[in-house]
């Protein structure tokens, strides 16, 4: 394998895992499930973007953000605003007092499209907004926090508070955001109906391919020198700083990348599900996405996807039949993952893979061709399961 492919796929073993994941979500699930269930899995996959972003940020960077729901929401709302404007053309909204504006604005006595909605009439600007607005927010937050050397639990609490601010703002400003109902009744994307079964399949595949793309991008980042720096910062931040690196800039960068990946997930969520609401922005979804990553394995990009699929599927299944049991299970999951499986499913897999012949041969073949990460001097930083320094 040439070196770029190796970096994108995380070696031969990583390539096999990624191919397996791709086979499952691109071939096996669509064959097994009906269109409704495929829509559900598509929704889960959009959460997986956030889980992948948390693996980068939390697993490798040691930075726990409880505000990923904010970025997911910003991406989702940006897409929803575009679709809503398209759905509220003057003809289909002619019963309103002011035709041509979104219905919830009309209900709240707003007569013109507000200025911050104007850019979302263009798809190009919308796509740019999806990628850049959350990244910009992340940059501001990251710059303010990391440059002042705020980290650890303080960072977690402050991002949680900012997420709360955003969700109160969305709920409170009903006329501009659709309030607690969110932005609903989304119909078409450039005239293409997103509510049909065939659209659901197309979006599902787009979704899955984007996710795989994000995973490959993340592999690339992690296998570079920057990936090593992340681990080093996580384990011995002071030492990295004393070696002459500006720790804050690395942290800001990875925070921005993770915000962008989450926002792509949010935008795909809006397309796949057909609405966006504040219940996917607040504190609870943000911390639930952390548990997706934790169950899958906080160090493993691919594990995070499996973790997301499993936990979300469990949530849907249990909250339909035993809603009471679900919260117990979810709470237990948080505790169990932290206490007994700090590396999640990926950790369990890595522990037992040496017992299975062909998996062992795979990982050995990776070791023969040393990657950047392979030669580790005795006293340098190594990947430990715990993301925090004491």
């Amino acid at each position, binding site marked *: 394998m040439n070196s770029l492919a190796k970096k994108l796929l995380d070696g031969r073993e990583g390539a096999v895992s990624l191919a397996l994941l791709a086979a499952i979500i691109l071939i096996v699930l669509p064959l097994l499930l009906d269109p409704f269930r495929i829509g559900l899995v598509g929704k889960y996959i959009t959460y997986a973007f956030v889980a992948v972003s948390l693996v980068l940020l*939390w697993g490798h960077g040691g930075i*726990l953000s409880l505000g990923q729901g904010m970025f997911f929401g910003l991406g989702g709302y940006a897409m929803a605003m575009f679709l809503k404007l398209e759905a509220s053309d003057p003809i289909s909204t002619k019963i309103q007092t002011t035709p041509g504006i979104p219905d919830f604005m009309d209900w709240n006595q707003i007569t013109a499209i507000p200025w911050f909605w104007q850019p979302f009439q263009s798809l190009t600007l919308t796509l740019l907004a999806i990628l850049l607005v959350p990244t910009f927010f992340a940059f501001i937050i990251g710059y*303010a*926090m990391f440059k*002042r*050397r*705020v980290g*650890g*639990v*303080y960072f*977690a*609490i*402050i991002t*949680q*508070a*900012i997420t*709360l*601010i955003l969700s*109160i*703002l969305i*709920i*409170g400003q009903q006329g501009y955001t659709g309030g607690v109902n969110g932005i609903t009744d989304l119909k078409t994307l450039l005239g293409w109906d997103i509510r049909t079964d065939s659209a659901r399949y197309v979006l599902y595949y787009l979704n899955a391919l984007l996710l795989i793309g994000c995973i490959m991008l993340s592999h690339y980042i992690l296998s570079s020198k920057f990936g090593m720096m992340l681990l080093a910062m996580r384990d011995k931040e002071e030492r990295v700083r004393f070696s002459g690196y500006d720790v804050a800039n690395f942290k800001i960068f990875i925070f921005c990348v993770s915000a962008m990946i989450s926002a792509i997930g949010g935008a795909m969520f809006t397309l796949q599900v057909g609405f966006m609401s504040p219940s996917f922005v607040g*504190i609870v979804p943000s*911390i639930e996405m*952390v*548990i997706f990553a*934790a169950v899958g394995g906080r160090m493993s990009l691919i594990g995070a996807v499996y973790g997301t699929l499993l936990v979300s599927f469990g949530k849907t299944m249990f909250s339909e039949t035993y809603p*009471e049991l679900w*919260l*117990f299970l*979810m*709470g*237990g*999951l*948080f*505790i169990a*993952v*932290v*206490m007994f499986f*700090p590396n999640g499913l990926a950790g369990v897999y890595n522990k037992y893979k040496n017992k299975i012949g062909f998996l062992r041969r795979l990982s050995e073949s990776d070791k023969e061709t040393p990657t950047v990460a392979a030669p580790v001097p005795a006293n340098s930083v190594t990947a430990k399961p*715990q*993301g*925090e320094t*004491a």
Partner: protein
Amino acid sequence: MFGYSLSEVGNIFVMQGFSGLSLFSVLLLMALGLAVIFGQMGVINMAHGEFMAIGAYTTVLLSNIAVSYDFVQSYFVFAIIAAFIVAFIIGYLVEYGLIRHLYKRPLDTLLATWGLSLIMQQIFRSIFGAKEVSATLPDWLLGSFKLTPNIDIPINGVFVMVLTLIVTGGVFVFMYRSRWGLRMRATVQNRVMAGAVGINTKRVDRVTFALGCGIAGVAGAAFTTIASTGPTTGSLYIVDSFMVVVLGGTASLIGTIASAFGIAQTQSILQFFMTSSMGKVATLLTIVVIFMMRPEGLFSSKVRK
């Protein structure tokens, strides 16, 4: 000013200021417990709101018993003590079963206690139902003083404030004037040395955590006098109380009091002049901005790090 006359603005400030004081009391009681746990041990307890709910539910249970055995006028004092004891015991057990395994991993503690809070909320829901319940208050807690014809001061608010003062004073005495407090502060300053001079640091941790939870229980008992309790009551206050602790600076009780006061007053006065949600947004935003400018908190002890 906003189309109100000067005397009206004065009255609004007094009344909103007073309702801010009630909020201040609950926030301070919550934040005191958190500050003890977070400031002294560095543990983030996301289930702190649920310990407050434990105190509130204990009070409600006792009030139901009081109604059937006819001692409504006097039960509230017992309820406060019971709320403290129940929350203390559960906190003690939680420390033993969960927290002590995670001291070196603060972010993981955060996740584990979040899981704990989910479980506790569901337990409340299963036992007490999803609806909000409220305690039957004794007559002496109802009604209000009339300071001037336009200003009403509710008695329950005054009661909560007095209770807050007593608890705050108690925490001060405990932390700075008692043997236990001395051990706690010694353990915080230098765990190894504290152990070497014969302090059982593990027991100190356990008691510190349980004490913080117990204070949250008292907050819950106080809370029942001004609002009704539901399974998710505690989670409504958790972010605010963390903001109080973070803004005040973790190592300082004075800072906690000052920031609880500032946050509660800002929020309640802003909420009158803006909508309720915008007042909250403005308050939280102010805190975040202040924190970004002064990450060590408003009142930090000057330590060379």
